[in-house]
């Protein structure tokens, strides 16, 4: 017999050790969220508690307010939440169809070499740091927006506008959406496609009707991820948002203010309530992301019922 009893014993001990180790690591990873939430909560909730050193802030008017002015001591993030939702959602609306089509192109339609080239294009876009997008946005996108506005005889704040934020975010979430969609489409069982082709559907019909349907769960997961990025993007957005003092903003050519741009504005030089309230804004942002993910995951479960990927 091959078995070396001592060795086997050691193997078993090792096995147990690794199991414990992996579990400890997983617990460690997930406990960071607890640390972060506790930390942000501790900081973010303090302005609403009685006895806060810079004067208690009313939670209700904070959450529903439509004016955010440090100079007047009025902090209302209600309109900022709406602005954030609007800009992220519109970005998704623009980016989603484009990225799904691009993904389909890369995964199924393009000739092999073109497909590889396009895949690198998407990878490159994903690798561009967000500040670089910010530089690009304040140099180019604002100009485009201004030009579009001038076609309608509207003057903008130098191009800083809701539209600029939306376009910027649409570009920024595009690589995330596309690469997730590619993965989902590639994961579709080739048997399904062959079955469709065998029934006399054309290749294009199969691509649109079978591949996309089968992959929709994965595609939707990409959308959730992309939306999360759109909510949380800070530095680039702050460069083109224009930071409006009241709101909400529905006019695409008017300046806007998002939760993240609020957190960044003047952060370097500020203290006291104005500093602490940023954590409250961060807390609101986390809650917004959490809720939106939760709702979207419910939707995903519904639409993903007959999906394989």
């Amino acid at each position, binding site marked *: 017999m091959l078995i070396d009893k001592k060795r086997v014993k050691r193997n078993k001990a090792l096995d147990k050790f690794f199991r414990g180790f992996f579990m400890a690591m997983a617990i460690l990873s997930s406990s960071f969220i607890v640390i972060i939430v506790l*930390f942000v909560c501790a900081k973010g909730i303090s302005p609403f508690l009685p006895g806060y050193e810079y004067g208690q802030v009313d939670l209700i008017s904070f959450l529903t307010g439509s004016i955010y002015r440090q100079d007047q001591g009025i902090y209302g993030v209600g309109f900022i939440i709406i602005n954030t939702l609007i800009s992220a959602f519109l970005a998704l609306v623009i980016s989603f169809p484009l990225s799904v089509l*691009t993904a389909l192109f890369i995964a199924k339609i393009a000739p092999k070499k073109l497909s590889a080239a396009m895949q690198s294009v998407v990878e490159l876009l994903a690798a561009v740091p967000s500040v670089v997008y910010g530089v690009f946005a304040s140099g180019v996108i604002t100009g485009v927006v201004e030009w579009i506005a001038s076609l309608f005889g509207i003057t903008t704040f130098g191009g800083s506008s809701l539209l600029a934020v939306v376009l910027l975010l649409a570009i920024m979430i595009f690589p995330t959406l596309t690469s997730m969609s590619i993965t989902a489409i590639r994961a579709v069982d080739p048997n399904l496609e062959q079955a469709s082709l065998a029934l006399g559907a054309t290749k294009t019909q199969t691509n649109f009707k079978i591949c996309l349907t089968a992959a929709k769960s994965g595609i939707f997961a990409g959308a959730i991820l992309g939306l999360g990025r759109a909510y949380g993007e800070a530095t680039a957005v702050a460069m083109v948002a224009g930071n409006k003092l009241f709101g909400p903003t529905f006019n695409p050519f008017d300046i806007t203010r998002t939760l993240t741009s609020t957190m960044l504005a003047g952060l370097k030089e500020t203290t006291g309530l104005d500093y602490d309230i940023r954590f409250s804004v961060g807390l609101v942002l986390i809650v917004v992301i959490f809720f939106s993910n939760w709702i979207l995951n419910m939707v995903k479960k519904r639409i993903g019922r007959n999906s394989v990927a």
Partner: protein
Amino acid sequence: MNRLVKDNILKGITYIASALSVIVLAAILWYLVSNGLSLISSDLIVGDYYATTENAAISNDYIYDESAIGEYTGEGYYSAKWGIALEDITTAHNDEEISVVYVDPNSPFMHMNSLVSGEDGMALSLTEGSSIQNIYYLDEAGETVFLSRVKMADAQNTIAVLDANATGIVSINYESIGGGIRGSIFATLYLIGISLLISLPIGISSAIYLHEYASKNKINSLIRQGIDTLTGVPSIVYGLMGVTVLFPVTQLAGATSTSILLGGLTLAIMLLPTIIRSTEEALIVVPQSLRDGSLSLGATKSQTIFKVVLPCAVNGILTGVLLGIGRVIGESAALVYTTSTVINDNPTILSQGTSLSLMIWSIMSGEQPNYELASAISLIILVIVFAINFIVKIIGKRLAKSFV
């Protein structure tokens, strides 16, 4: 409608969608190149950020002889009297400087001693490429005159003033151009190293636990939910958390202020969801039959994981590494508070420093945004990203070859 026509229209739409993304990438690259390419030079990449300033007086044993000073026909404004040619330059940081383009070997500026106390009158000569801050010269009456940077105005005026008024040179204050980003490049690499070193083992282990061990119970779904939620935390919050919660940890390692180590730790936590997710995806792809095969041969679970599952998943894990590196290179908001925006020419793990992206952020949010420099640094970042992608892909192919 004819089916073929319909098909072609649909196909066409996908072509257009893809073309749009190419256009966006091209526009970004075009913008960066047209703004930044001219600034990229070896000086920018390998040079020090901080200028070294020299304060030097003409040596006592130097005897001025105007006839010994030669001719010069190159660029810039030349003073045949003092043997020095100057030109106006704008540095990468948008400062206007008067730069030395040529110094005659017999010029007084070639025979100087340092005035800096502690340097013991070390011999110095004015080097080409340095910028002049001020000059003390003797006028007709033998009085020392201070020619400040503002009074110098530009190269032409400086030469004119020296030619017309000066009867002798007393001392000069000059500095190297500086503005290089070498320190920031190293800081960025350190950040990548530290954050991956920490987040890879933790992240891969977590993914293994979640995918290979965890049964569907409350605790495990709580763990998973926690990790998923980490994805949604905006990076700026990580930064604020890092400086408060992780700073004491780095203090144990000897840090006295914000440091690259602190930034690396913060980024490591930020990377966890990315690494865990991509590792898990890679593990999902490994066929269950391989695990069964290994276990049926009497291998323990951990042996199966290390010998069969992980080698098969290595490519997917590398994808996670790539994504992670991309995030580290691109991150700015989380680093503002953890590494500080202090530019450091010779960063160490425990010193402050700024990554390239953070440097762009500082440049763009400073008193005077400098689009050109930001674009130039962006281009350098992109080159680094491509290089790392390329290397990791090659490693991935090698590894894959040895397994399949």
